[in-house]
């Protein structure tokens, strides 16, 4: 519940950001200047980690996770991006207690849609990913769902400790987020992912309740969601000039 609140807050903040940034942008285009100023733009590799997963690992005893991510700028607005992570999650309902452990890899591109002022290098990006995960799932405990369980007054539970190994899944993601430069070369980012499962190995006589990198699955379909809070550092490799006049046209 706490997490849901965090997610919702982050959505709200992201929305707020995109609106206020748009407003700034409009002002800028209204007062078009014809200066031919040049600003140096840094190109390089940005590497970082997911703070959200670390915090959640500390706060939530049913979760342990870690993710490193990176992007490499290949043109003014285009970045190659990827994530690598590992997660362990115990899903507990009234009738099931299941632990999923595994790691994942995601690769794709980010497109910066934000026109920066002056020499700033912030991002509001939209991107795509293909994700893959290998994992195992263990049924720690289950209780038979029986609407008559009150009658004999003994709901039946079992602790089979049954493990399903070598499971895998492949999915695609649409990702939207921001990356803001807080200090020189140090970036803070928020993003949201909407995921669509392409294929997954389902354990026989059971199903995947959680897929590392994809997050929880839903009975009703292939859709999944995710949120990331990143902190990253840009390792500049070379610089390129940005002509402001070109951007304003």
């Amino acid at each position, binding site marked *: 519940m706490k997490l849901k609140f965090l997610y919702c807050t982050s*959505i709200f903040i992201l929305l707020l950001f995109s609106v206020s940034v748009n407003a700034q942008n409009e002002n800028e285009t209204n007062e078009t200047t014809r200066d031919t100023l040049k600003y140096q733009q840094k190109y390089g590799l940005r590497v970082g980690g997911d703070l959200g997963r670390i915090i959640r690992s500390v706060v939530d005893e049913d979760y342990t996770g870690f993710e490193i991510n990176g992007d490499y700028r290949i043109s003014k607005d285009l970045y190659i991006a990827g994530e690598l992570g590992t997660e362990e999650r115990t899903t507990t309902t009234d*009738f099931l207690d299941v632990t999923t452990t595994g790691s994942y890899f995601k690769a794709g591109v980010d497109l910066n849609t934000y026109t920066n002022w002056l020499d700033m290098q912030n991002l509001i990006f939209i991107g795509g990913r293909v994700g893959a995960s290998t994992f195992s799932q263990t049924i720690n405990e*289950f209780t*038979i769902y029986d609407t008559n369980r009150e009658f004999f007054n003994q709901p039946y539970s079992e602790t089979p400790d049954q493990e399903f190994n070598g499971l895998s899944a492949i999915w695609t993601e649409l990702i939207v987020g921001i990356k803001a430069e807080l200090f020189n070369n140090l970036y803070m980012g928020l993003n*949201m992912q909407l995921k669509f499962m392409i294929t997954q190995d389902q354990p026989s006589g059971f199903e995947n309740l959680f897929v590392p990198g994809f997050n929880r699955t839903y009975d009703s379909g292939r859709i999944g*969601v995710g949120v990331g809070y990143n902190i990253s550092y840009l390792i500049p490799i070379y610089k390129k000039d940005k002509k402001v006049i070109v951007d304003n046209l």
Partner: protein
Amino acid sequence: MKRFRYPIITFFILTIIVWSCERDDICAEATQTTPALFIEFRDISNPDDLKSVRELRVIAIDEDDNPIDTLALESASPNAISLPLLVAPELDENGEVNIITIRYILEKNSDLADNDNDTNDSTIDILELTYSNEFVYVSRACGFKSIFRLEPVIGARKIEDDNDDWIINVSIENELIENEDEAKVLILH
């Protein structure tokens, strides 16, 4: 920038909608989960017809004939009942299929049980059910259910043949109990 504004906002709204619409953490009532044993009471002279049992009382008993619980019936004189089945391990200690036995008292004219008139009393029969169970995964919200398989011939039978019976015959229509759609056992009286 402008051309991306609407896709981004749409994306967020869609995500929120997808999120909030997910309700599958609650097991829907319509989901077929662990079934009870559906029994119909039929007329011995015309087995195609249902025949209600007057003032029926149904009590589950243990091996020592001590009552466990009384089943709540929808109608006082039903022509069909659903008996809960006890869920137990699939396999016994030796790794063999676990055979479970439970007993139900079916008492006809139960409203007359306490009067002192011997010629106008309730009639008690005991139904014994012998079966094995199997666990089947349903969904994230419902977890696992149990389905049951009645033992051939002895799966459902009347025990304790005294001269004071109202049940004439018990027949198994379907040994496999995985739903409550149709009668699995018929009681002729």
